């Protein structure tokens, strides 16, 4: 398979002005990836699928990653690195037996700028997996045919796979809270509303 | 002929039915529990227990409350608190060792990570409770079982563990002896040196 840099160069030749950066992977697996700007993502995905040399016809794995904002120290200067949500696609070619080509997209932040283009029109395989990323991480996929919660129930509010998600206590989910369970749940809820979870929650 | 496939299939069922009626071991494979019991394989595991070299939980427990099992337990069903002696210094024995077997999944990782061969997997499998809250948290008194029990349920493994522990003990004693001898020699040399200096 051609190197990730060669793929990037060919993408840039086809889509001048597209944002494509190589993300190197430090582990021995050496599965490097391409970070793609959301403006051209759908066109690039279609190109990756239809390109004769690559023909990445299978989108194997779609997943989200949460990167909360964190403090980094560079040259003894502290700064806050803004948080974001990332979606990772592992692409393979069944006809050419190639892979994986890993592409990733990032949202602007973790609160209001969380829309990314859906790649379901290119690979049906993304349909359920993007729903899952929407459900568990809170990334909105523009152009997804059926973007609903998939694992959590529709009335559920939070996104459990985010790193700052605070799980409720077990007794909050007793099927029918009554007696002392109800009292404990109430007390617990009061405590939680009095002291809200740390910043950055959805 | 239409239906011949169905008839062929029915012949197979008839053969099986007759086979199990006759007690053909290839067809009659179940055991009438609890009157008869299937043999338990040597590797079988259910829940963990603590090995004691003495008689009970307060005597001869191998556990030193290092909490290695607690930190590696996938289900987080272990709770260990180290005991303190009269002076308030940490004593190498557990004050509390609780195991919630309603949460335990019997994976055996605690036995793998234990550096002191003190936690091992039991083979009891007929355990039941009347409700889902009581009787499932086992204290160290209930968990402590003697080394001879361990030998009884897992003879090969227990023998191997005993041999290894004896070897470790011997090496430690030798090392201590050597260290003592060295210290004595050094002291003697020092004494001799100070004598000659005087």
């Amino acid at each position, binding site marked *: 398979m051609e190197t990730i840099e060669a793929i990037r160069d060919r993408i840039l030749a086809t889509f001048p002005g597209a944002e494509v950066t190589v993300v190197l*992977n*430090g*582990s*021995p*697996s050496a*599965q490097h990836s391409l970070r793609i700007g959301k403006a051209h993502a759908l066109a690039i995905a279609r190109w990756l699928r239809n390109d004769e040399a690559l023909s990445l*016809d*299978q*989108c*194997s*794995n779609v*997943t989200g*990653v949460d990167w909360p904002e964190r403090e980094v120290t560079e040259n003894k200067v502290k700064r806050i690195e803004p948080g974001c949500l990332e979606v*990772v696609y*592992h692409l393979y070619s*069944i006809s050419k*037996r190639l892979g*994986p080509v890993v592409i990733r997209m990032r949202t602007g932040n973790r609160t209001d700028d969380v829309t990314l283009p859906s790649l379901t029109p290119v*690979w*049906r*395989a*993304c*349909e*359920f*997996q993007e729903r899952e990323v929407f459900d*568990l991480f809170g990334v909105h996929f523009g152009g997804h045919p059926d973007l609903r*919660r*998939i*694992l*959590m*129930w529709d009335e559920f509010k939070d996104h*459990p*796979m985010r790193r700052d*998600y605070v799980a409720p206590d077990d007794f909050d989910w007793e099927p029918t809270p009554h007696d002392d369970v109800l009292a404990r749940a109430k007390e617990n809820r009061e405590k939680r509303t009095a002291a809200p979870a740390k910043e950055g929650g959805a | 002929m*239409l*239906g*011949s*496939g*169905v008839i*062929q*299939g029915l012949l*197979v*069922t008839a053969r099986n039915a007759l086979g199990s009626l006759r007690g053909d071991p290839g067809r009659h*494979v179940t055991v009438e529990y609890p009157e008869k019991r299937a043999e338990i*394989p*040597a*590797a*079988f595991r259910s829940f963990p227990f603590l090995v004691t070299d003495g008689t009970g939980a307060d005597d001869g427990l191998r556990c030193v409350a290092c909490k*290695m099992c607690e*930190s*590696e*337990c*996938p289900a987080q069903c272990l709770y260990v608190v180290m005991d303190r002696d009269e002076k308030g210094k940490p004593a190498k024995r557990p004050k509390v060792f609780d195991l919630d077997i309603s949460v335990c*999944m019997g*994976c*055996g*990782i605690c036995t*793998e*990570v234990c550096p002191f061969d003190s936690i091992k*997997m039991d083979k009891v499998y007929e355990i039941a409770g009347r409700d889902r809250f009581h009787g499932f948290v086992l204290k160290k008194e209930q968990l402590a079982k003697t080394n001879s029990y361990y030998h009884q349920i897992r003879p090969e493994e227990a023998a191997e563990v005993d041999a290894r522990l004896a070897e470790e003990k011997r090496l430690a004693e030798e090392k201590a002896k050597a260290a003592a001898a060295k210290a004595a020699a050094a002291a003697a040399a020092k004494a001799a040196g100070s004598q000659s200096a005087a």
Partner: protein
Amino acid sequence: MNTVADLFSENTGFREGDLLELSMGPHHPSTHGVFRMNVTLDGERVVRLKPVFGYLHRNHEKIAEGNSYLAAMPYTDRLDYLAGMTNNWAYAHAVEKLCGVEVPVRAEYLRVILAELTRIQNHACLCGFLVQDLGASGTPLMYAFREREKVLDLFEAISGSRMMGNFQRFGGCREDAKPEWLAAVAKLVAEFPSFLDEFEELLAGNEIILSRTQGIGVMKADQAVNAGVTGPVLRSTGVAHDLRKVDRYGVYSRFEFSVPVGAHGDTYDRYMVRLLECRESLKILAQALKDIPDGPVLDPKAKQKGLRPKAGEAYGRIEGPKGEIGFYLISDGGPNPYRFRIRPPSLINLTLLEDICLGQTLADAVAVLGSIDIVLGEVDR
């Protein structure tokens, strides 16, 4: 006197010619666990089908991200509880990629033996479940379970547990196989074809099975590839895609076996591909038992507890009985995985469920679902 239809119409406002919306599941004997399908029916024909997931969701990924690398291993048994051994292997494979650990050759052989045993017991089960869904209550399923028990006995003898083996480790296997165990596997491998013959004799020519499965739930090859369908379901459409041949992970390149493919992509082909795969698995098992070398099964230097891989990521995948089971791990250098993702073959194989059920009768939709082979522990995670 009112007919039943009149009463029904009176109570529900349903008029003849209306579409009937039916919630099938989550507690329904034909949905293989707590799975629900919201079906819209025109008479007996399916015009819309929406799968509903999540009844068994316990957020396995979140649990694993709060635990050490080793502590995630027993949880993988509980994903697809019919295929614990291959799930273990897939996870170990991903961590080995992440850390660059080498696996001793004997361990690779042992993994192949366990994976192929898993495959035959999974496929035997599936064939039993499928004919159960077709209405053959009990008998063929019990025959299949009888054979499965023999495989589970072997798993218990080597790992201590019938289904929750927790057997693979990073860089090998937890225990070595004793010669007696290998002899027991050889005995099973010698006897298993007689079960397959019997099962085929029982069902392959059965006219009811043929008419209920042939031409039902047809999946096209390009459609299946685009939807990420893998495993026997993909191969039944004629695409010879098997990771054992494509990735050649482990020692699979040393064995001679073929990849059975179907031609029509219907329920019958999905069923037959699995029976044929069992025979191929037995071939692999015979070769692996013959060639298994001596040596260690676990490199003592390979770290298990307190593993802290270098920052980076890895996606490792193997061919499970249900399709491509993969694990995607991101390490930030800490003791817990920063991101732990399972690629669930059962969930992704369900992508096309609605497409292939449209226009079929409801009874056939049940059979189609059965032929896809899902385990809800893995679908919902």
